[in-house]
């Protein structure tokens, strides 16, 4: 009786049969689900990346300016010329400074949101971080162009607060200074910091949420000062979140070529070089080799990040 009920198919429609096959053979279902997105990313994205890699082993004929389609490492060797090496190092330095400052700005927000904000307050914090994160990139850059202009708001507030002397002293400092904020590294770092800080807050907050309150209390009970608790308990436990956030701040700074065009000194950083090499200079091989640099840098970064367990905090 039971056997008969089980063996009798409920209906014979072809759709039903297809469904039965798919339910029974999970591998087939998985393959069917994965094929379209994998085809898309495999062909368009990976295909393009390989096309780029392929271009980087070609070189450009110095006289005719045309691409020579013969495999060579000449273009990569060019990366290590003093001028180009300088650009790479400068870019890494800017990215590092931006990342460190982003940790400093993001940490209090993340810590407050994770430990003290509850209910509505917590939702408010979340929206307050999400809104600047998702709002228009160019509008945000533009806002800083307004603020940092010589006649703009930052200068005005500095003057109103009687700090123009301090601003001038800062601007006359070598490296970080310049003729005005909008053409100095300080301005450029400020803009990057503003753009990428929200990307740091979210993973740090996620990591801090997982730190048990009892652990912090235990540290205090055992006689640690708040600063000691912070350095020896909270910071190490938040580290995966910090590393996860750094992936964004670092990668986004490495590849940006728009901010340095609008705010910052005339010396180029990596993204701009890639852009001008492929565009006005028409040297696609060198541009390709240059864009392999951030891929390698990020590869190293991601490998280290994976070791610290940062991917679980993403």
């Amino acid at each position: 009786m039971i056997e008969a009920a089980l063996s009798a198919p409920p209906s014979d429609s072809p759709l039903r049969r297809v469904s039965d096959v798919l339910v029974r053979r999970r591998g087939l279902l998985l393959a069917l689900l994965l094929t379209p997105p994998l085809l898309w990313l495999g062909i368009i994205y990976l295909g393009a990346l390989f096309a780029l890699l392929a271009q980087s082993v070609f070189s450009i004929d110095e006289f005719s300016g045309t691409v020579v389609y013969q495999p060579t490492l000449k273009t990569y060797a060019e990366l290590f010329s003093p001028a180009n090496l300088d650009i790479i190092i400068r870019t890494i330095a800017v990215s590092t400074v931006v990342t460190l400052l982003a940790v400093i700005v993001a940490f209090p927000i993340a810590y407050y949101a994770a430990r003290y904000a509850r209910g509505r307050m917590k939702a408010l914090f979340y929206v307050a971080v999400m809104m600047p994160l998702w709002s228009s990139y160019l509008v945000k850059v533009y806002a800083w162009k307004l603020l940092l202009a010589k006649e703009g708001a930052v200068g005005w507030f500095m003057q109103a607060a009687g700090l123009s002397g301090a601003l001038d002293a800062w601007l006359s400092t070598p490296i970080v200074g310049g003729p005005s904020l909008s053409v100095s590294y300080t301005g450029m770092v400020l803009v990057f910091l503003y753009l990428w800080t929200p990307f740091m807050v979210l993973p740090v907050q996620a990591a801090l949420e997982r730190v048990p309150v009892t652990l912090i209390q235990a540290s205090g009970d055992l006689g640690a000062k708040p600063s000691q608790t912070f350095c020896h308990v909270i910071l190490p436990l938040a580290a995966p979140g910090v590393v996860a956030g750094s992936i964004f701040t670092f990668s986004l700074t490495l590849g940006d070529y728009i901010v340095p065009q609008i705010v910052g000194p005339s010396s180029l950083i990596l993204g701009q070089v890639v852009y001008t090499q492929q565009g006005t200079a028409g040297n696609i091989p060198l541009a390709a080799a240059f864009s392999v640099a951030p891929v390698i840098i990020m590869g190293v970064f991601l490998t280290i990040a994976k070791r610290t367990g940062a991917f679980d905090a993403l």
Partner: protein
Amino acid sequence: MRSSRERQSKEGPPLGLRLGAAAGLAFLHLPLAFIILYAFSNEDRSFEFPPPGYTLRWFGVAWNRPDIWAALGLSIRVALVSTALAIVLGTLAAAALARATFFGREAISLLFVLPIALPGIVTGIALRSAFNLADISFSFWTIVLGHATFCIVVVYNNAIARFRRLSPSMIEASMDLGADGFQTVRYILLPAISTALLAGGMLAFALSFDEVIVTTFTAGQQQTLPIWMLSELIRPHQRPVTNVVAVAVIALTALPILAAYYWTREGAPIAGAER
């Protein structure tokens, strides 16, 4: 437990932390307020602060600019098509990877995240050199190809989070009650993930609408709104018009972001969530 909670509420946040958090949030929000202020400024040559006077004139000027409308139209069309593609592809990927374990799963999930983990300029120049090699000329579809690629991950992230919250017993119950796979998808799965897809779609739309780094490489001579803004930033023609467009963009992107938040916020009712 009780005592620890009492102690926590008694302590409250230290003053330094309060100030740090407040300063950080102010840093994140004040700059956009200045853009709104400047949209009403009657000074059209410089970014003088405080503005010498206020006017609504530039809103009218911007309204009557056909180039802005054309750029806006292209941006919206690109964003709609890219979002639609990303929703389909991202959902399929999330459905496959949410609970399955198989060899190569990690590599595949890395592939989906790669377009946002690698700098945008790499994606941009890679696509451009591929278009060159394959002799594809720039068009609406070259922009869409680039945008959909990095929008997939946004939908994927939202969808996979929802799939994981969804109890597998819901699906089993549906099948036990005689529904076939397609009916289960139609009546159980889709309603349960619909708000996550909507939220992912909203974010994908905002991302595509705003994208400029990849787009400069894939657009050729076409102007999306961000490309229009970029050219105004580098070579300003009419600053007040740019200010007005910036305010419009702030308003246009805020809505989908808030909607996405509303649909995925904690405590939002979801059928079949594991509690």
